[in-house]
């Protein structure tokens, strides 16, 4: 299913004025930042390309840029009347008239449905309106059915140019969806589109995690009346039981080199953290003692594991070396801190903590400093996980009725639901970038 990602042909386009050295317009690692106003003129339908298709492409692009949290999107409906109907890529000579649009950056493009109507060509240009400089331009050729991925790439490219790092538009989020008594695993694109069921077995399927290659999902299922760990392909085929000790087999986390798996096993009557090799063999117990140990997650350098333990009497976040030694407690505030997740950049841990009778997403430095509550009062928020670039956190929240998957920037800005208002969704897991 990932094959189509490599079928997109990319051509770098030149413009009448050579592009300038890349500079960072937005330091997204700063604690606060102002969103860049970006203007999106109407896209042009070249030749016989249906205007409805071009409109859809435009809509997905505008939505992607909004979801990124980095932009204030000025779409064509917000433009003054003399700009509103202008379509396609303006010439550099006429670029000055766009300066009055209120945007600092302009992203313009056109769509061409080629030949038999099965192939699509998308062209876009990115222009700095303040300095009147051309930043980049590219052309993508692929099958029409891949149009979303082509648009995701344009959004990613835009973010790369303006922030110095590629976006995560070609990523996916796996999560649990409640269907009556059963729980099934589903996968959606970063923008909530393309929701597809992965399991359809009516069982209780929980706690999805991506394998490092992004080709499979690991999850816990009660198919055999025990919470066993399974692997499944993204097309829902090839179900394989991976760990089936009596009791819990939950929450695997692959080491960055893919050689080891940390997970929760309940075979001794309580949950402990164990290590397995990539084949699921050579079991090694990492935690001992009386605590309930849960949700192990590797540090990006592969040297440490963060987890939750109630060994002190209440669940708190701990860090240990990957051999189980050097255990240190990270959280001291509150009496319920669980489900940690290590940021891909390595500097912060996100977790779910209880404050004022509600559950919130927090982040904290790996040295225990800089504790930050990210979710607003008046809602319950659980199970945080990072995007592969560390700029976003996905989590579940009950703020809009039933539990839904939300995404926010890592500083807590721009919180928005990923999934439809149906509810009953939990336990998000973010994939790597597919490219």
């Amino acid at each position, binding site marked *: 299913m990932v094959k189509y990602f490599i079928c997109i042909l990319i051509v770098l386009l030149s413009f009448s004025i050579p592009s300038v050295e890349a500079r960072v317009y937005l330091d997204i690692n700063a604690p606060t930042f102002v969103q860049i106003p970006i203007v999106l003129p109407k896209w042009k339908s070249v030749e016989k390309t249906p205007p409805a298709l071009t409109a859809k492409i435009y809509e997905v692009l505008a939505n992607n840029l909004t979801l990124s949290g980095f932009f204030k999107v000025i779409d064509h409906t917000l433009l003054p009347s003399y700009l509103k109907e202008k379509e396609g890529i303006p010439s550099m000579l006429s670029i000055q008239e766009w300066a009055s649009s209120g945007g600092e950056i302009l992203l313009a493009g056109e769509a061409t449905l080629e030949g038999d109507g099965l192939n699509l060509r998308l062209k876009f240009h990115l222009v700095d309106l303040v300095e009147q400089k051309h930043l980049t331009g590219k052309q993508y050729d692929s099958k029409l059915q891949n149009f979303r991925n082509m648009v995701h790439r344009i959004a990613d490219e835009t973010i790369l140019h303006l922030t110095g790092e590629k976006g995560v538009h070609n990523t996916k989020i796996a999560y649990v969806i409640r269907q009556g*008594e059963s729980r099934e695993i589903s996968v959606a694109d970063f923008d909530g589109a393309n929701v597809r069921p992965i399991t359809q077995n009516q*069982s*209780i399927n929980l706690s999805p995690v991506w394998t490092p290659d992004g080709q499979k999902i690991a999850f816990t299922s009660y198919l055999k009346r025990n919470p066993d760990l399974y692997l499944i392909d993204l097309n829902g085929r090839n179900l394989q039981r991976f760990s089936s000790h009596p009791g819990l087999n939950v*929450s695997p986390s692959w080491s960055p080199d893919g050689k080891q798996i940390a997970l929760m096993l309940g075979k001794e009557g*309580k949950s402990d953290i164990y290590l397995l090799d990539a084949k699921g063999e050579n079991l090694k117990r990492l935690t001992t003692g009386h605590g309930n140990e849960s949700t192990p997650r590797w540090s990006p350098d592969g040297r440490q594991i963060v987890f939750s333990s109630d060994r002190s009497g209440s669940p708190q976040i701990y860090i240990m070396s990957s051999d189980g030694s050097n255990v240190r407690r990270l959280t001291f505030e509150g009496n319920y801190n669980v489900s940690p997740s290590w940021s891909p950049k390595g500097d912060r841990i996100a977790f779910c903590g209880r404050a004022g009778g509600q559950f919130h997403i927090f982040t904290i430095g790996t040295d225990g400093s800089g504790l930050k509550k990210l979710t607003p009062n008046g809602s319950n928020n659980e199970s945080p996980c990072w995007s592969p670039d560390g700029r976003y956190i996905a989590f579940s929240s009950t703020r809009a009725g039933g539990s839904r998957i939300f995404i926010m920037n890592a500083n807590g800005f721009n919180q928005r639901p990923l999934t439809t208002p149906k509810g009953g969704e939990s336990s998000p897991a973010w994939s790597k970038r597919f490219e």
Partner: protein
Amino acid sequence: MKRKSYIVSVIFVLCIGLILMGCPKKTVVKDEPSARAEAAKIEADRAAKEKEREAREKEVKEKETVRLKEKEEQAKREFERSLVAKRTPGIEGEVFESGLLKPIFFEFDKYDIRPGDAEILKENSALLKKFPNVKIQIEGHCDERGTNEYNLALGERRANSTKKYLASLGIAADRISTISYGEEKPMDPAHNEEAWAKNRRAHFVITAK
């Protein structure tokens, strides 16, 4: 006068002595046959009575056995009647639920057995002792608050502390298996304190009867 009395007394004493020495011999010889018969009769009576008593006792005992057996049968029938087969889509196999095996409940984020619930476990263990072939599975459940994974671990703990308590009451550990469903199988799907209290439970199902 004094001396005369003395002599009379001596003679009297001697006579008494003679009588006492002679009498037993004479009695034995004289009464032997009739005494034996009498003794035999008494013995026979006694034996008969004993036999009767034994028979009566046996009867009572038999009646008691029958009664106990009936009671046992009745209890068994009652237990059998209480069993409800339960199949869950997507989960292999079949288990039984019985209203006679009562669930116990827990405080938020706790897995220790509360004193009132210990009494319920005593009743449950008495039932399990009556039916030594019965095997059970203890399901540990949580309310919806907190993350799903943490609640799986908590449910595991609740099921196992319940198992430990039953084992301490003399139920063989190999008759008890455990499973945690975390927050995934609420008894009451509402989102309030009342529902949460019902959902934090150890629930018993029968895996072999």
